């Protein structure tokens, strides 16, 4: 939510830009996000890394079940514990691990499907675009094991020539207890 709050002023200015321009950017952004998702589902991790900015913050805080009065405690904060709190260096390690052939939770490799939906540009500042979306990651393993994770995603895209780079990905999961053996897949 906080993000939504924070970005509201920004968004207003973005809303003022002409429809055609906004529609065009929406197309470019969706195209990028879909292509990025397809690389992960195709297990083309190296090509995926090529879309990741040097300074990326890839973060999934822990969600807790709390009463309405405690909603400020729903997600852990930066610097507290998290499921993912990665720099590019860590993401590269995750990729190396997936390539090792001995990452048993992904050997044989899972079958993943990254659904990116409800894509919304919430802020544009210079060459940086903040995008919110709903995600659903479906993972099927071995004969019949299936996991799914859904949630809200806040990405920061940065223009880099003809394409974008992913400079921030914050993942707000809709689960508290993770109902899966692990989270060995890249979200």
């Amino acid at each position, binding site marked *: 939510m906080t993000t939504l709050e924070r970005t509201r002023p920004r968004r207003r200015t973005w809303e003022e830009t002409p429809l055609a321009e906004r529609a065009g950017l929406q197309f470019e952004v969706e195209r990028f996000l879909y292509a990025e998702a397809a690389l992960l589902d195709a297990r083309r991790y190296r090509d995926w890394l090529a879309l990741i900015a040097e300074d990326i913050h890839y973060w999934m805080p822990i969600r807790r079940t*709390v009463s309405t009065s405690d909603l400020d405690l729903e997600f852990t904060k930066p610097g507290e514990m998290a*499921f993912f709190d990665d720099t590019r260096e860590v993401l590269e*390690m995750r990729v190396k691990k997936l390539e090792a052939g001995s990452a048993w*939770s992904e050997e044989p490799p899972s079958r993943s499907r990254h659904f990116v939906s409800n894509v919304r540009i919430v802020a544009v500042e210079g060459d940086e675009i903040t995008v919110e979306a709903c995600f659903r990651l479906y993972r099927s393993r071995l004969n019949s094991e299936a996991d799914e994770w859904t949630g809200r995603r806040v990405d920061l895209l940065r223009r880099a020539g003809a394409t974008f780079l992913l400079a921030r990905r914050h993942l707000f999961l809709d689960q508290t207890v993770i*109902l899966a053996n692990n*989270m*060995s897949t890249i979200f």
Partner: protein
Amino acid sequence: MADGSHASAWGEAEILSLFDASTGELDRRVLSDEGLYRLELERIFARAWNFMCHDSQLKDPGDWLISWIGEDQVIVVRDDDGRINALLNTCRHRGNAVCRAERGRAKSFVCSYHGWNYGLDGRLIGVPGLKTYYHDDLDRSRLGLARARVESYLGFHFATLAEDAPSLHDYLGEVGRIGLGMLCAHGEVEVVEGIQKNVIGCNWKIAVDNLFDWYHVAYSHNSAQAAGFFDISKILHPKNQMVMLGEFGHAIGGPGIPPERQATIDGLTDDEREAMSRAQGENQPRIRPRRAAELMGPVGVRSEGHPNIFPNLWITLSGVQMCLRLPRGPSKTELWWFTIVPKAAHPALKRKMIWEANHIFGPAGLLEQDDGENWTQATRSARGVAGRKLGQRLSMGLGRDEAAASGNGGSAIEGLISEHGQRWLYRAWTEWMAARDWAQLKANHSRPPTGTV
């Protein structure tokens, strides 16, 4: 769902035969049988001292969180006198859950069904219509939330449902106390915000025995090494292993500091030890200050391994994390990861400790990821008609090592990587499961051995 309302089909002799300590042969049904699982809830979890939380998680009166004793939900709450209470999360009227969130702050607990109101100590302090509908005729003193016994050691709170359980101090014994002492070796601690929780399709015991298992590290976690995340050779110390065995199934397994190195350390001031820690580079456990000796004793202080407080509390990273393994059925376990830092630690050090905890363990941890897959498959194969007859083989180091008294009730085995810890766990398990009550368990449990093991 297990109902467990009728007596188990498992007799004492049959239970004792499920693990043969003389060969290390484990009957696989221990990991898959529904009846044994139900009996575990009665004879292990309802009877043991279960870890609830650390003092720092409940700072003020009214602070509460949910924890578990087996599959029973417990509200752990600090009352107005600052005492920690553990209350079954079920209303005494019709059984509704009194708390549904994971944590919160409350003045009292009001049940959402009919509004019965319970104090922070569980007493029933309010009943709508008490005077009218109940004609003031309700024995409130007998209708408080069911209380579990709560005792603490070094700020770690445990609860048991067994009236006849020994005190927490006696229950822990030397080895359990060393385990908790390890967490406090660097000074008074606090739990970092955020407990990673996930569910794994394995039996809870295979997750527990794995913490003694330094044999699996090289192969199971090979990919973390390949990724350049850690250097196994720097952490494994296969020739300097120390296993400590305590009463009631507590144990510690993993690298031990050789006596000569410890002697050197003993000669240093705390500042010198800090300098030495900084010097030794990545992935090396921080050298403990002098206070550690009081907490861990002369032998325990040399352990850099993994303590387990029986049945299911693992202390890891030489005291930076704890992991609870909560039973959720014969083939399902819920893991809770706690991260502990010294209150007084430098912010930069805290950040470093949190960063490591976040990336080593937990469902996305670069090490932890791979364990669940092996445990799940080991559990699955224990269900097959043929598979479950094969037994498991826990014979590593059997009869090859010497155990010596560690001075205060426990014993220590020094040598190579072995399966002494796992054998001790399953031997204790059979004793817990065969005992009808605490009296019988006290009489019939194995004492930490000395001599050849």
